[in-house]
């Protein structure tokens, strides 16, 4: 299957008063046509920045390098004019907080029609008709009267449905959903995710889901990219997430998910702080300072090790698994229980 999107060595830096901020430090990923991938990482891991760089919507203070191949062209090499023709037409984006990302003083209908009108894809009449059709498709009852409503007259879940409809209006080949359910209630969250998945299959478009929720990632995507400090530390098929994950960071993340059926214990967590992205980055592995499996080699940049089809890990000790590693049984040391620092 040919890829609809390939990102090669994407780097994003910001100039700031404190020094250079290293937001994304060499991101590689590939999205098969019609496929869905998830980018998972904690706050500040660079996942949203990378996607904003893809849309070329970063502020001017950002320095972006690398290549983003979409549909046979490098997005970073396009002129602003050419890029504008792609946005909202070939590549669309759904944002985290629909209440803030919709204009409070324009009707839902006006805002829905805009992707078609900006790209001269339809007359206002046709656009209106298509907008109504899409409102119904995303599950908004009484579309005709809601069309004239303003954002403050909708609930958060309804607005996110509107955002999704808006993103799909012009029939994009790629949809980027940047934490689409983070601002919503848990019950609404499931509905929105189901809707996204349905529409993705229906339109045969590629989807990148940005999330910090491993469960959502496993449920929605075919492949998962785990980011840490602006780097992908592991890429694996969603099906292997529980059984075959290899990076100590991912192991720590999975261990820190509370179980609903287990005894009520203090939750394990990954000790230490994320890498400070301001100024020069550490020499070796970026996770080394928090990693229990740290070895002398970790003072050098770790290699990317291919473990399986669609499964790579950036680590000196790639075959760490749930069961153990070369140096013996895994004594569950990656994260200390109840805050013990290892």
């Amino acid at each position, binding site marked *: 299957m040919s890829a609809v999107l390939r990102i090669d060595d994407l780097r994003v830096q910001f100039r700031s008063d404190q020094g250079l901020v290293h937001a994304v430090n060499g991101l590689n990923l590939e999205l098969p046509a019609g496929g869905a991938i998830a980018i998972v990482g904690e706050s500040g891991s660079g996942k949203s920045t990378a996607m904003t760089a893809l849309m070329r*919507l970063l502020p001017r203070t950002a320095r972006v390098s690398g290549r983003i191949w979409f549909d046979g062209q490098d997005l970073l090499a396009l002129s602003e004019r050419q890029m504008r023709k792609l*946005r*909202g037409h070939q590549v669309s984006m759904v944002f985290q907080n629909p209440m*803030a*990302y919709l204009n409070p003083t324009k009707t839902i209908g006006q805002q829905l029609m*805009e992707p078609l009108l*900006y790209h001269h894809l339809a007359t206002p009449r046709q656009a209106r008709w298509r907008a109504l059709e899409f409102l119904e498709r995303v599950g908004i009852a009484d579309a005709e009267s809601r069309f004239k409503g303003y954002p403050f007259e909708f609930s958060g879940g309804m607005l996110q449905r509107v955002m999704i409809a808006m993103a799909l209006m012009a029939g994009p080949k790629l949809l980027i959903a940047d934490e689409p359910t983070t601002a919503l209630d848990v019950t609404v969250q499931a509905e929105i995710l189901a809707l996204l998945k349905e529409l993705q299959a229906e339109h045969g478009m590629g989807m990148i889901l940005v999330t910090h929720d491993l469960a959502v990632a496993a449920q929605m995507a075919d492949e998962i990219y785990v980011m840490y400090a602006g780097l992908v530390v592991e890429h694996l098929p969603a099906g292997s997430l529980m059984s075959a994950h290899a990076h100590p960071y991912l192991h720590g993340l999975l261990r820190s998910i509370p179980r609903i059926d287990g005894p009520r214990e203090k939750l394990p967590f990954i000790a230490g702080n994320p890498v400070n992205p301001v100024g020069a980055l550490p020499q070796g592995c970026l996770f080394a300072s928090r990693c229990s499996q740290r070895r002398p080699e970790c003072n050098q940049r770790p290699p990317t090790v291919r473990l399986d089809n669609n499964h790579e890990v950036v680590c000196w000790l790639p075959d760490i698994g749930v069961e153990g590693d070369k140096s013996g049984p895994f004594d569950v040391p990656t994260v200390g229980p109840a805050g013990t620092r290892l």
Partner: protein
Amino acid sequence: MFKYLIRRVLYIIVAFFVVSLVTFFLMKAAPGSFLQLNQYVGNIAAAATSMGLDNVVAQELAQEYHLHDPWYVQYWYYVWHFITFHMGYSFEFPNTDTMTLIRQTFPLSLGLAVTSIAVAMVLSIVFGTLAAVRENSWIDGSTMFVAMIGTAVPSYVVAVFLMLVFGVWFHLLPVLGYQGPQYFILPVLSLAIPMMGSMSRYMRNSLIESLHSEYIITVFAKGGSLWQAAFGHAMRNSLLPFVTVVGPHLAALMMGTVFIEQLFGLPGLAHVFTDAASTRDYPLIMDSTLLYSLVIMVMNLIVDLIYGVLDPRIRRSRYVQ
């Protein structure tokens, strides 16, 4: 919105009575009585004193103005006559009642004020938008530099400067009197330029703030251009705070027209008002004060109604309560 309008109109009525009471007592508190005609410069007074009839006339006047009645009865007559448009006669011009005087001069003053505020608003929206869209460029810098000068210089200085340049040096525009629309250009500019200073700075800052909102990112993500984002989306949101600063300008504008009408020799109400104040022409002072306050209140109401037009959250507030 309708409820809101009703409430606002009620406020205006209450405020109007307060203003009328205050003027009434200020006039009463002012030293001297207008029955001592020899202190007066008005035409009636002069005529009566010269003929030695001051006592007779004074009695007649006291009768006519109910001066022997208690204050609340006097106040009631005064309000009643204003409401029914029987405003009495000016001391200065005993043959014209004040209503006629006001009717002759008020349209010009109102026209001057409304035109200036309109010109100031339109131009500051244009300049503010240009500066905001090209934030931190030379356009931004130079526009805002000129705006700062505009804020710092009062309207009567601007007026003198404009008179000098356009009237004296280049002979392009008339500087005195009123015989046609071209006589309006310099007075309007003199009033508008100082207002434009602060208003265009406000417009710029408020538009820049709107342009940094999240929903503008959505517009770009949909494929919109900077101008589509600025005019189609940010503009309406940034007009809200902009309109807020227009309100306070209205009161200052009324003061401004007084200076400007004097400077340009325009036969407006301001002229009548200042003359009335200096000659203690009570009926004229009281009526024009009431009229001025009424105009300011109505203009503020219009500004508030524009709010509703701009922001659906205010317009549809009956849904939310």
